């Protein structure tokens, strides 16, 4: 029983972590929370469906193609609904991201229809460990997610491109003075974030099935993950995601299965109240 909850909690949690990480990358680069991130997940899932079911490609190849397409969509999203609003107030950017989220939802419904769809699993079947049957798909999700996190870590910390992204995130004005093409760097950040989130769509689809409104719940759980993990910290987002996944599973089993979704947000508010800087972020000091 516990093992079962643990595995599915980690698998789902790590996906929330990936979405949260995508959001944090965008937040560190441009300073706003992307309210359409949940819909990147949904759209990525539909792309994976197109490659896997419609064109019959192998699932892993479809996932990779889907995340690349999703990256392009991320850049288009940046160019249309964010770039023109760079100077505007945060609330205008938030609302324009909501507009984009509606467009993505309706676009998906018009292109792929509103009937729930599914696609192949990375690995069929399941394995029994200590009396609990675990699906290979969950194991695949955890494996791929860890791989992605490693890649992102290497890209950001170790490569030249990574330094450029970090520089733009720290100070756009300064990096433009130094000669970094800021629009390219921010575009790359959006590409990376959308690709990361898009691949999660393809991974979740075989278990939770694709519908054009699945983005909203995933998006708000990723919010919870970011706040719990520590606002703006990448490792924090991942750990926060795991906590959300585990709270969802264990809360649902032991506390109350009816209020399962509500529990996550009770934990979110508890963190906000008693540890606003989350687990990882250093103290936020406001200067006079």
């Amino acid at each position, binding site marked *: *029983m516990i093992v*079962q*909850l643990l595995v*599915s*909690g980690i698998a*789902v949690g790590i996906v929330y972590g990936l979405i949260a990480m995508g959001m944090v990358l965008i937040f560190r680069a441009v300073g706003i929370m992307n309210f359409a991130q949940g819909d990147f997940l949904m759209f990525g899932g539909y792309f994976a469906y197109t490659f896997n079911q419609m064109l019959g490609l192998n699932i892993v190849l479809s996932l990779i193609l889907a995340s690349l397409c999703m990256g392009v969509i991320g850049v288009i999203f940046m160019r249309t609904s964010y770039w023109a609003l760079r100077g505007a107030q945060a609330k205008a950017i938030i609302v324009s991201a909501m507009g984009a989220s509606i467009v993505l939802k*309706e676009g998906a*419904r018009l292109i792929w*229809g*509103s*009937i*729930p*769809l*599914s696609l192949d699993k990375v690995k069929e079947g*399941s394995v*029994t460990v200590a009396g*609990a*049957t675990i*699906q290979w798909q969950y194991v695949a999700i955890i494996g791929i997610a860890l791989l992605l996190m490693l890649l992102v870590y290497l890209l950001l910390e170790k490569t030249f491109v990574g330094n450029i992204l970090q520089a733009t995130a720290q100070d756009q004005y300064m990096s433009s003075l130094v000669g970094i093409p800021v629009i390219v760097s921010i575009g790359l950040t959006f590409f990376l974030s959308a690709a990361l989130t898009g691949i999660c769509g393809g991974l*979740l689809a075989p*278990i*939770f*099935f694709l*519908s*054009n*409104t*699945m983005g909203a*719940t995933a998006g708000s759980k990723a919010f919870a993950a970011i706040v719990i993990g520590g606002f703006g910290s990448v490792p924090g987002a991942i750990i926060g995601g795991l906590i959300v996944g585990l709270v*969802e*599973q*264990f*809360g*649902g*089993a032991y506390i109350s*299965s*009816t*209020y*399962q*979704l*509500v529990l996550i947000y009770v934990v979110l508010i508890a963190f906000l109240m008693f540890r606003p800087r989350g687990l990882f972020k250093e103290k936020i000091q406001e200067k006079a």
Partner: protein
Amino acid sequence: MKKRILVCLTAAMLLAASLTGCGGGSSDVIKIGLTVPLSGDRASEGSYASNAAAIVEQEINDAGGVLGKQIKIEIQDSLGTDVGATNAYLKLAADDDVVAIIGPDNSNDNIAIAGSAESAQILTTGQGSSPTLQTTCEESEWMFQLRACDSTLCAALMDYAYNEVGAKSFTIIHDTETASTDQANLFKNAIEELGGTVDDVISYTSGTKDFTAQLTQAAENDSDALVMACLYTEAAIIIQQTRDMGIDKPVFGSNAFGDPIAIDLAGDAINDVYSVTAWVPNTPNPLGAAFSQKYTETYDEDCAKAAAQVRDHVYVICEAIKNAGTTDRAAVRDAMLELTDYEGAITTYDCSRRGNCGLGGLIVQVQNQVPTIIKEITTG
């Protein structure tokens, strides 16, 4: 600066265009209103309904229409909320050419509409199957529940489970959504009346995707059988996760478990699941089989219950209009009350009851992806 003016102009133009869009109908067409969610979480139900409406409208008009006039099915999006459904309903009711209105398949929306039906005074048919809607329709002057109510169907399924399959103890898992909650209560009462035991009733918030928590709880009870009341998508997910977790107890489900949407999604995990439903695409009913085949030919997908229901509702309304001989709303409603034995694609209808008008239901088991009928039940 020019850009700003340009946007303001387009906004103004959009507004003007929208205002002229509504109102004005010619009198030589009989309109039947249909409010279904075309957007929002239950958009799939809306797409089946609008597809079926197109076929039925074509069928009836080719056969000479009604009272010598062509019919037109006017669809309005209920946006998946009760406020949206009421707005859509009132829009249809305001159009004088509309003779009757078909409500959506969601009980909440139908109950919301019932209030407006009294003030709009127009024949309204609800697709919901919950007992709450049945009492609302029985108390209403203008609203009919053109469907077999869950109360008798759920009891029949439990009777089958208890006596024929031989399960004695049950664990019930249900969505907190209205229809599923009603079904769960009906299952519970039926089991207790039969003398069986209900080990546990576990609910989940609608929209939940991961049921590990609920299923692990259910597995611990080690009951003879599981009973599930869910909607389409969740039905497919929960049955897949049940089998993946190695729980191979017999499963008795609400109508969603016998529906093509869930069957396609769940794959072979849904095999040998029992469910009680009013409609299966490969129905022996001659009218039903014809419609189902025509639907599959036109849209290349199985004909789900939501489609067959719209077909029956439109035909029953047309029958009432024919008997009334006029498009006067009150006369059509009265003619509807006389229809006691109308043969539809899904089942026969006795509209004089106002609620629970569908007379028949089916106990179905999914055998390698095909919902096969095991027992026919009547709600007489």
